[in-house]
């Protein structure tokens, strides 16, 4: 699985301050730490960059490229900043992201073609965010058709079904299930296409100490259905270890729970029990609550 490190993100105060003050060190430290932890790409989420979009984006790209040879994932909604960044990337970058929204389609997809890069396309459209697997597939098929016309082949497209928080009252669990369904179908309807997700959003709003197990479990569930890539916290060691296939017993438990097997919890360790319970929440079998590990 292709791992994209998410840590350089303007939502982090340290990152946004460093960008504003052109302080290279915090950003380079994060880039190096992620490279050392096994990232394949470094995501640069710089926000919309209303002020000095071109100069700022190029500064961030160059700053990171000084300390790592890894390819970059350029993450902004601003097409001006995006193009400026694409111009200075040394390795073939990932344009993150385009969607089915008219503006995004018309501005971002030609850039992906012009700079011959891979591109993330999400299921968003002008009508909003489709919630059922079928409507997500329909929406991505439309946008991919448009991209193909622009000259981008399926192989360069990384489809993103958009992960939303599982804790959202009532609906979150259905959405979690719809993404698994999406992964099952996508290769059949769009042969050759790749896929990616912003994983951490699944645990947004969940008590912070409980977030990692939700992220890890959900990643293994998606990976079972050929998820190609993931944007993720690469500094989570257990998650990286799972991605490298070092925890086959846990993954096996997750799969068996997904298949509806009635697993005897009394023979399991606490950690294994927690993974079974978390899988049941993400398949929708158990109703979510913040106390899901306690019941």
């Amino acid at each position, binding site marked *: 699985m292709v791992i994209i490190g998410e840590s350089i993100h303007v939502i982090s105060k340290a990152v946004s301050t460093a960008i504003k003050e052109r302080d290279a060190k915090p950003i380079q430290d994060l880039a190096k730490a992620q490279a050392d932890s096994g990232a394949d790409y470094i995501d640069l989420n710089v926000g919309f960059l209303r002020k000095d979009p071109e100069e700022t984006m190029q500064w961030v790209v160059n700053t990171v490229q000084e300390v790592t040879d890894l390819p970059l994932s350029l993450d902004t909604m601003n097409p001006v900043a995006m193009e400026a960044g694409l111009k200075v990337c040394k390795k073939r970058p990932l344009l993150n992201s385009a969607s089915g929204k008219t503006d995004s389609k018309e501005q971002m997809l030609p850039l992906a073609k012009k700079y011959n890069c891979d591109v993330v396309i999400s299921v968003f459209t002008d009508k909003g965010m489709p919630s059922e697997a079928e409507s997500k597939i329909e929406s991505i098929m439309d946008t991919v058709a448009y991209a193909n016309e622009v000259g981008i082949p399926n192989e360069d497209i990384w489809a993103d079904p958009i992960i939303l928080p599982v804790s959202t*009252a*009532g609906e979150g669990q259905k959405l979690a299930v719809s993404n698994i369904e999406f992964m099952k179908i996508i290769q059949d309807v769009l042969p050759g296409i790749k896929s990616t997700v912003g994983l951490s959003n699944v645990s947004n709003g969940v008590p912070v100490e409980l977030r990692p197990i939700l992220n890890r479990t959900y990643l293994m569930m998606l990976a079972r259905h050929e998820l190609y890539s993931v944007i993720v916290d690469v500094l989570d060691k257990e998650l990286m270890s799972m991605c490298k296939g070092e925890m086959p017993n846990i993954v096996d438990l997750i799969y068996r729970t997904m298949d509806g097997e009635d697993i005897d919890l009394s023979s399991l360790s606490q950690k294994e029990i927690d993974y079974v319970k978390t899988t049941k929440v993400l398949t929708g079998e*158990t109703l979510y609550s913040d*106390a899901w590990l306690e*019941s």
Partner: protein
Amino acid sequence: MEYKAPIESYSGVVREITIGKGEKALKIGGENILPFHFFDEGSLPNPPIFALEVWDMEPTDWPEWVLEPFNDVVSDPAKWARKCQELGANTVSLSLISTDPAEKDTPAREAAALTKKVAEAIGIPLIVYGSGDDKKDAEVLPQVAEVCDGMNLLIGPVLKENYEVVGKAILNHGHSAIAQTPLDINLLKELNVKLCKFFPADRIVIDPLSSALGYGIEYSFSLMERVKQIGVIVKDGMTQMPMIANLGGECWKTKQAKESKEQGLLWEGITALSFLLAGANILILRHPESLKLVKETIGGEIWQK
């Protein structure tokens, strides 16, 4: 080909809970069918019950037509409660509004003594609601539980902010608890999980909050429907508690109910009917005429099935 209606059969059962003691005892819950699905396999051993609401002080903001049936008794909560019994309520719900620091800040001891007096004045079970101020309720409700030791009142709201102290008092003095969360099934389950670590699940009633017709009833309706479905169909033990719909106050503060008596009665009646359909096991109303209206609309025979 002859059409044969499908018959469902579910393995989840809503817990049967007893409120009140001895001759006053009433059972609620115990069903393993969805609301009014009498055509399916299973049964509803205990039909929903109705409470009329009594306050521990004279209400100043009730429309005159809600107070009218109780004009002669509003100054005496015990007499008021007895009148509710005479008017056909299965149980009385006493609201300790005056204990609210924003009202009269009545001390816990006084509220507890009054509660005991009301409970002893009636031959039916008593539900007690604190003011909803989580800090004050953490003083008032444990006192109520202690003074009324062993009477098996149904006491709430038990909130995520005070469930430990209030829950323990309710448990230690032999009562049942109303667990209340703000219109969210995930929070509702979480509170039940936490409460059940020390509190028996078969002494809990869920209050998901009941919005009035036109003021968000859809949210309450879908939530109750879902709680019942997840309990009966999916068998989630943390949603298999009976539910209480405390709707009278929500209805009678609407503009429509304040405009005319007829509108108010219909507002309360239709809101109550909706929550019956959603699966409420206890309904708290304010007006005896809307209570009568609801009972007549459903009729008595359906519960015999």
